[in-house]
């Protein structure tokens, strides 16, 4: 059989194709470095600008009219409490919804519509959630401008993220494992609770944390429901030394949060407050990165344990 091309032609062609290969690597690396570089520059700039404010005082002091004495105590405590409520609501509701859609729902047009809607909800502007929450939680349910309202609002906001991530995680459990459990006579719920859920915990927690790290920086919805920008007190502590040790007053407390505090400082004319804003932004960014890091670590831990 006659060769289609000579060996030299073949080599020349191959060299050209390999060059294209290299070109793509270079291009990809460039784009990646650009993205990471921008983030790094932003972060370092914030750190540099806010450097003078970092310190114990900054995180243990309430806001003040004097920039050099103002701190973020009420902001980070508020943020922590809101995140706690958000996680506590979004996790069970999101996981239950995902389990229903993935394991129980019949595959028909209604389920299809619900699925499309859940995915679309992830793209709804956050201010819309704020407006919904203002009407529903603040006024209709009468929760007021409270930690509870803010937590519920952000839970609503990240629910689609949690649902989608959970469904992905559930789907990753091989059919063979489900069949093994069914084959032994397990009911659908037993298969879910004994196998599917435990084996997808890593993916579910990763989704939750990624959702939370989106929620932690959200400003618009909590401004809408009425976060205060100047709070010189902490919500009542959830744990006390006296019986009954737990109280839920903090849920009804007025609040501020990190992004609100930053927004407030940035909008002041006094240059000294800009420094505070930069310092607080750097801390918020670090909190977000730490949460993402935690998500990666959890995923790694579970991947190592369960290797199909």
């Amino acid at each position: 059989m006659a060769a289609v091309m000579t060996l030299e032609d073949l080599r020349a062609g191959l060299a050209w194709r390999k060059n294209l290969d290299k070109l793509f690597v270079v291009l990809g690396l460039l784009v990646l470095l650009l993205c990471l570089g921008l983030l790094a520059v932003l972060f370092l700039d914030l750190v540099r600008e806010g450097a003078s404010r970092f310190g114990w005082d900054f995180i243990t002091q309430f806001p003040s009219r004097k920039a050099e004495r103002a701190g973020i105590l009420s902001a980070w405590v508020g943020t922590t409490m809101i995140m706690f409520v958000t996680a506590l609501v979004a996790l069970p509701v999101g996981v239950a919804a995902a389990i229903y859609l993935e394991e129980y729902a019949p595959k028909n047009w209604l389920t299809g519509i619900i699925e499309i809607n859940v995915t679309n909800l992830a793209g709804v502007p956050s201010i819309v959630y704020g407006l919904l929450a203002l009407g529903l939680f603040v006024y209709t349910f009468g929760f007021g401008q409270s930690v509870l309202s803010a937590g519920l609002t952000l839970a609503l906001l990240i629910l689609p993220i949690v649902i989608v991530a959970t469904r992905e995680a559930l789907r990753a459990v091989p059919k063979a494992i489900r069949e093994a459990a069914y084959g032994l006579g397990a009911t659908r719920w037993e298969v879910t609770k004994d196998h599917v859920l435990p084996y997808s915990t890593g993916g579910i927690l990763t989704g939750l944390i990624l959702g939370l790290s989106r929620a932690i920086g959200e400003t618009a919805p909590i401004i809408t429901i009425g976060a205060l920008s100047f709070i010189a007190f902490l919500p009542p502590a959830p744990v006390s030394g006296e019986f009954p040790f737990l109280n839920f007053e903090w849920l009804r407390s007025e609040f501020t949060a990190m992004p609100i505090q930053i927004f407030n400082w940035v909008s002041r004319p006094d240059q000294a407050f800009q420094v505070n804003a930069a310092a607080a932004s750097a801390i918020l960014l670090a909190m977000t990165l730490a949460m993402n890091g935690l998500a990666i670590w959890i995923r790694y831990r579970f991947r190592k344990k369960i290797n199909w």
Partner: protein
Amino acid sequence: MDIKTNVAREKSGAPSLAIVMDEHKASRATPAKAVAEKLDFWYGANHALKNINLTIPENQVSALIGPSGCGKSTFLRCFNRMHDLQPDTRYAGSITLRPDNVNLVDKGVDPIEVRMRIGMVFQKPNPFPKSVFENVAYGLRLRGVSNRTELAERVEKALRGAAIWDEVKDRLTDSALALSGGQMQRLCIARALATEPEILLFDEPTSALDPIATAKIEELITELRQHVTILIVTHNMQQAARVSDFTAFMYLGELVEVDATSKIFTNPAKKATEDYITGRYG
């Protein structure tokens, strides 16, 4: 001549399938454990099993052979109602389990109850990503066994029954995923044995294993038949010849021929069976 015409010819002409089966039944010394009669099965509009009549003798190994897509796995999965997990599937006819004469594919019979009586070992080893012990104990826990001593005894018995006890007795708390492929499959057999099933189904249990692991599983199947009725689907005809007492040949959703394994492999009654086992197609 191709297989389709063979089957068609044999269906219309003598000797009919029914006569072959009657002769076969008469020659059988062991009582029946399960009897499939006029069994049909549909995936949606796809008529996957057509009028299957087959007797599964007690404490014997029955093998199902046939080319890919002939319905042998589909038939096997009727015995523990695995098809019920898929939407839009339908059974007709019966698989009667002896001695209590329950029709396993009857709508009124709970598929979970069926699966608690009939164990299954799958094509690819599928241990749970839990400890060796918990894998075997799971079926028992589902049945409400929680006493530690009893669990330990039953797990040991099942692991011994699956000829894997000596290999795992010191690593019962290790993850089952750390075992080799052959060990995993024997663990899956132990998991199915632990609940003392009345019939044990094997769906091509060695197709993912190397020859040495395969030999161990085959030896195990031969031993197990003293205690449990076995139905095995296999792609490997030598395997059917080695491990089974009876062999049924299926083609295009129909049962073509069933007989003692020695007879099927030396002197099949049907041309189609002969073509298949001599490797003329499939």
